[in-house]
């Protein structure tokens, strides 16, 4: 099935006009950012040692600092649009380190290699190093804007800011009375949502 999809994409690419094909260029880059988590809502329930179902939620005001580090590879379509695959390392909130992977669509207000603003939408998932409840996939989505400075030929510097939403199913829960870790076997539900604001830089070439 995947091979069929790949063939369809290749045929579509081959069908592009010669002028348009000449404008499609592969790009690579690195991106890093400071990220501040300002919303964190966690709801979970589990069976206690007495066999009682304990339900709890945490939604206190929060501001936690984390970081993001990404590498990307993609294509520029024409002089204004770009699609790229991003992956790297980040913490979506305290003690929740993940390896995210996503697709990003970017629109450049000026030509790709010129000084100018850009806006982007990014969506994907992540592999959680500590595991997830019922192996449910995480969701990471972000929207952002930035400014591009061309440095040399295709080598560019971007400064950007983005707003990120995460939906997660963490395994590591602490008992509300004893503050001890809850065994994974007695966990019945765990869902956590968060929002963060990132400010960072990117180099692309």
């Amino acid at each position, binding site marked *: 099935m995947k091979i069929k999809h790949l063939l369809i994409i290749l045929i579509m690419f081959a069908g592009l006009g010669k002028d348009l094909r000449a404008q499609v260029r592969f790009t690579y880059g690195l991106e*890093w950012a*400071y990220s501040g988590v300002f919303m964190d809502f966690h709801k979970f329930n589990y069976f206690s040692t007495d066999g009682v179902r304990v339900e709890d939620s945490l939604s206190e005001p929060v501001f936690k*600092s*984390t*970081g993001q580090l990404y590498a990307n590879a993609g294509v520029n379509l024409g002089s204004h649009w770009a699609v790229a695959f991003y992956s790297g390392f980040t*913490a979506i909130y*305290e*003690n929740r380190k993940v390896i995210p992977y996503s697709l990003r669509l970017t629109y450049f207000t000026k030509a790709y290699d010129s000084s100018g603003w850009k806006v982007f939408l990014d969506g994907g998932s992540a592999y959680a190093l500590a595991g997830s409840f019922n192996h449910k996939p995480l969701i990471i989505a972000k929207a952002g804007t930035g400014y591009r*400075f*061309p*440095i*040399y*030929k295709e*080598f560019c*510097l971007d400064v950007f800011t983005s707003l990120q939403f995460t939906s997660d199913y963490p395994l590591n829960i602490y008992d509300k009375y004893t503050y001890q870790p809850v065994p994974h076997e007695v966990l019945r539900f765990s869902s956590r949502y968060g929002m963060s604001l990132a400010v960072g*830089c990117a*180099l692309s070439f």
Partner: protein
Amino acid sequence: MTKALITVALFFLPVLLPARPAGEGDRYWGTVHSLKGFGASYEYPHKSRGVNVVTAYFDLYGIPSLKTSTPGFRLSFLHNLDLAQGSLGEGDASWNLYAGMGAMAGYLTESNLRNGLATGLTGDFGIRFIFPSSFAVSLYLQGDLAVHLKMDDGLTMTMYKNGLYRAWMPMLGISYKFR
């Protein structure tokens, strides 16, 4: 031990370097990015040879791993000299390999998570790309040979181990030449 030897070697490298004509060079303002920390830098030509670089950055030791939540602050002055240089592409961009030494001071977290005042020598070694767009990008290593002063149980002074342990972490400098 190897990391410590490399750091010590960096301090003495500039002594062997060739002179650069006085007055050559530009003034750059920039930012510093690394897992070690982030901050700002200012570079200006030295009156006889080489360039001087003043860097101030927030030290992030222990923050990504959530061992501590308070960043340190570090200030350094470096005198950098060229080891080798060349041109890129059609000759409109250039690169230079450089090394330097200088002094540093700051309020920093040691590897045992104790905060204190650190001061001593610092050295760097890296490669720098200078582009016609007025941007310069450098990738370098920097290590400190310093002491760490703490006031917990009276004044104690120890070697600032993080200055050597983290010398291997690459740093990226992005700077801009204001005309």
